[in-house]
């Protein structure tokens, strides 16, 4: 017994070392779990508050540029909406002279947008994450999409009461369903490290027809993003590793290095509608005994 105590005394720091490493590794692996704890992330109250103060101080410097960028984007979108509305009206009016323009946004009303501010953001890691100043109390929950004025940003990863951690599109684990606008081909947006403005869309079929400069938007096939949210523009194409599909190199529309105001997309109403539709479909199926 005395020898054991002597042994423990002599090598106590090795036991402490093993203990601390085990605790650290538990944290590493727990965080890989999707529902991991928020205690040791920037979503906890203390670090969230500190980062929020830092972001508030920084915002004064970058507000001018951000406002200008949003204004320009707003003008482009307004122009696009006007043109589309005119085209739609002409098309409908040609077939039905009694047609009255009721707007083209009823589909978007199902999505509720929760404005949030980015208080911490990284673009230099393999698994880039960002923290926003809205949490469960504001209606933000995991798996909700996040976008800014220019395009997609990421998906909510975990939420505390007042803060949330967002899995940025610049994260190896990010997997957002996209489409080539107006062409219908869809694939998945991935980031392979390197520059923060370059990402790749995988699984585009080889028979797809598109050109460099074409726009990539969200496909709407997942419930995280509505269809049509800007992702970026095609820079070039290359063969996938297995040679069965194309891999598109995309210039991201979102400036991840200068991100301040974002919106969390709450699609609860859409999910409810889909769930109701599924239940109705199931109930109408013939009973098999």
């Amino acid at each position, binding site marked *: 017994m005395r020898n054991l105590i002597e042994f423990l005394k002599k090598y106590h*720091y090795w036991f*402490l*070392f093993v203990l601390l490493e085990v*605790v650290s590794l538990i944290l590493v692996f727990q965080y890989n779990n999707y529902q991991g704890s928020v205690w*040791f992330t*920037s979503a906890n109250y203390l670090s969230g508050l500190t980062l929020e103060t830092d972001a508030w101080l920084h915002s004064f410097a970058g507000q001018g540029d951000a406002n200008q960028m949003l204004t320009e984007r707003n003008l482009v979108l307004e122009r696009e909406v006007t043109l589309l509305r005119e085209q739609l009206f002409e098309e409908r009016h040609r077939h039905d002279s009694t047609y009255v323009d009721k707007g083209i946004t009823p589909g978007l009303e199902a999505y509720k947008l929760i404005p949030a501010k980015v208080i*911490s953001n990284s673009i*230099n890691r*393999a698994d880039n994450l960002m923290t926003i100043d809205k949490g469960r109390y504001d209606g933000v929950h995991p798996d909700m999409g996040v976008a800014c004025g220019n395009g997609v940003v990421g998906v909510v990863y975990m939420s505390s009461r007042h803060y949330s951690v967002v899995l940025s599109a610049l994260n*190896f684990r990010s997997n957002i369903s996209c489409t080539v606008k107006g062409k219908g081909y869809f694939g998945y947006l991935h980031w392979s490290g390197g520059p923060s403005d370059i990402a790749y869309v995988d699984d585009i079929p080889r028979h797809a027809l598109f050109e460099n400069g074409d726009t990539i938007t969200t496909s709407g096939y997942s419930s995280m993003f509505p269809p049509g949210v800007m992702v970026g523009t095609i820079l070039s194409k290359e063969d996938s590793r297995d040679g069965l599909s194309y891999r598109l190199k995309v210039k991201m529309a979102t400036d991840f290095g200068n991100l301040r105001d974002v919106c969390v997309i709450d699609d609860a109403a859409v999910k409810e509608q889909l769930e109701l539709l599924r239940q109705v479909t199931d109930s109408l199926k013939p009973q098999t005994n």
Partner: protein
Amino acid sequence: MNHDFVRLPLLFLVLTLAQVFVLNHVQLFGVAIPMPYIFFVITMKRGMAKWAMLAWAFTMGIVLDTFSNTPGVAAASLTMAAMAQPYVLDLFITREGDGELVPSASTIGIKPFFNYATMLTGGYCIVFFSLEMFSFLNYLRWVECVVGSTLVTVALVMAMDSLRRKKD
């Protein structure tokens, strides 16, 4: 009063704040992340209780992880570096030397200090990026990150050591 009683908490605070508010947002050439907080472990004095070194390093790692959204990664890497520090330091100094020596270019010489800092920082970066990426599928990027970050961090460590010498 023990000199470390003031020096360590102050260094801890300054390096942590610098990393969280400034250096976490810096990336050079797309791969190199400056992580000069390793200076905290590098300059732990010879003969310091090993349990205290481990506790300090782990605490700093946890705080950095919390702000950087890398739970456990910096904590595991810094604890590993603190455990290795006395053994790596012994490679570059004579055993008869001062038992309370604080490693720096002025106490052990510029070249031995550079080699000591490079070895410890390189080891730290290897563990850090292995845990962070947790996959060697993109091994080229892993190598770039380890080499790039080690070079940038060692340069900053040498600069901080030079500043400290001037102040002394």
